[in-house]
């Protein structure tokens, strides 16, 4: 009978635990979703291909972050210079900080689900549509039979509300 090796199981367990963190980390360094997803896929491939180098019991998150940073570096090298709107120092400082604040960002994730329920049905509808794969404000506008400008305003407002709510939740300590 075919069985999954221990190392494969270990990888699946670790990767499952950290995959969303990894994507979040990438997203703080890549300015758009499409490219972030490409970097994420490349990172997955490299993580798996190099997993034999990972020492069991050591810090998978820290190890993954190093690989992400190389993948993001490669991504930025592939971009035209004008696409890199920030300096190397900017990306470096953001990456260093994002690595060590991972626990706080985990808590933010829990806060998001609470705050999401506070949005209006219309706002939820727009958010759900815009975060579907391949969606764009234009496509959402067509689907919901609204103008792109109206979609933009709704999105902007929803993000502001969500973020403000998350900040309040985190600082009130309700989630801990």
């Amino acid at each position: 009978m075919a069985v999954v090796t221990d190392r494969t199981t270990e990888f699946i367990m670790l990767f499952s635990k950290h995959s969303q963190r990894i994507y979040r980390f990438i997203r703080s360094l890549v300015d758009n979703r499409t490219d972030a997803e490409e970097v994420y896929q490349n990172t997955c491939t490299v993580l798996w291909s190099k997993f034999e180098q990972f020492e069991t019991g050591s810090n998978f998150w820290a190890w993954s972050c190093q690989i992400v940073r190389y993948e993001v570096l490669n991504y930025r090298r592939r971009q035209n210079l004008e696409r890199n709107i920030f300096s190397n120092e900017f990306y470096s400082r953001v990456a260093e900080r994002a690595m060590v604040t991972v626990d706080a960002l985990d808590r933010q994730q829990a806060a998001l689900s609470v705050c999401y329920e506070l949005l209006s049905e219309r706002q939820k509808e727009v958010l759900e549509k815009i975060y579907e794969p391949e969606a764009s404000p234009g496509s959402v506008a067509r689907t919901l039979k609204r103008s792109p400008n109206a979609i933009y305003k709704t999105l902007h407002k929803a993000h502001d509300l969500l973020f403000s709510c998350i900040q309040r939740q985190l600082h009130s300590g309700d989630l801990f």
Partner: protein
Amino acid sequence: MLSPAEQETLMQLCWDYQYGTLSQKDAAHLEWLVLHNDAARDFFIQYSSMCANLEWEGVVDPGPLGRTTDYEPLPSGELNSLPHYLPVVTESTSRRKTLFVLLAFSVLCMATISLLYFQFWRDQPPGFLVRFTQAQNAVWEEGKRSWNPEDLLQIGDQLHLTSGIVELETASGARVILKGKSRLMLINPDQFILDEGNLFANVPPQAQGLTVETPTSRIVDLGTRFGLIVNPLQETEVHVLKGIVEFNLLNSARETTITKNLFEKDAIRVQPHSRVITKIEATPESFVQNLNHETPVLVAHWKLTDPDNSSIAQDQSENQLNLQTLEDKGTSPFTGKSAPKNALTAAGPFRSQFHKLYRKLSEEETPLFNMNHFTIELWARNPNLARSGDSDTLFHYRNTEKHTTSQFNLFSDDHSGRLGFGFLNTKDRYVTHITNKPIKWQKDRWYHIVFTYDSNTPAAHDSIVTYSRTPEFTSVADFQQTLTQIEDITPLVPEGILAIGGSTLTDISRHWGGDISEVRFINGIPDRHATPDPSAKQARNH
């Protein structure tokens, strides 16, 4: 702490950034805030993180937002984001345990070494970017700097190596071996430009990201060993010997137009003007991988892609053992023949002795050929089977003034098509060994022929010889044979004639007949041609 006004400003900037509407001026403002204010940096990260969490629902499993609230192992949707090709392997429990123990031990050793290494660098941060560590017979271009072991390179430093081999080590631990003739420039701590030459890089995990630029390409190491060749025509070859390499094809503005990952044993060639990428066979022996150990070394590589009617066959190795046609009645074998395996052209037909390509080897050149342990590989087709009475010669060496017979001959036998080699043994006797059964040669089909000779132990008559022949467009040899208990070969005597496609200058009958391409003479036997168990093969063939 951020004031409400600062928070509002940051919120707008972060939104514009996420939505792709951030102006350059606003980008500069956002950067300034993030770099100079810790709270602003956290704010930016938290905002990005919120957007990522929202997107994640779409990435993993489109559904109600806010679904994922914990990190329980393998919650329903997360599996969708795992690599698709996770292998399912059948292994016995005991083997798994043994492998696990070995792996754990290796990882422990590596981790210890890495820790010590990093500790060392932390205590003594390197004051250099790249260190020149070793040199073997290095000759530097006139008027350019001569580098010596322990010299330190800084950004902008250039190496103009005319011949010989040198080794560099980057501060992050990557080892780069350069073989002359080469021109290399350091442009960043882990980034070089290779204008021309032959470069091998061994990149440990902490140095991943090492980048080498060539006239047409940018190669980024993702671990761990690769080789690059940039010839004088600015053709780039990338050979991945282990691990993964990211290959970027650049346009004339040096912008990336194609990116692809190359894996172990992948090799490609890029034409300088057309930017056409062709897949080629990876040849590790083209690169010096270690200055301290004997590894297979390419002595000569005649691609036979020279221009039509050329009277010279260029040797692509650093030894520059170019061949030539006969001076008087010589006829160029370069007639624009199509070639196998994505090569542009081949040489041929070698229809008479006047088409052969030859070189008289000097006293300095003959020792380059290690006749104790070598490989000859080439592509050939259409031997002269119909002509009776003699052999169809592929590769030949003879000093007519010293010996009445050939010193070395690789040929196919008339009529039977069997492959054979003849040579002068250490008792000055010419002996031949021919494969044991007839071989068919399909008309116009290219065959990859590999011949290896290993003198084995210092004892006489225990050499091992292998032949293999693989038709083009197949990956499996249609003929293989190993011979053992073969006599030892006499080293090449200087001032003899090395010939491809024919034999000595005066012999009129021994010529290949058809076409030949990509001839390599390699000191040593590359792993891909090594015979794991000669005795077993011999038993099978008998």
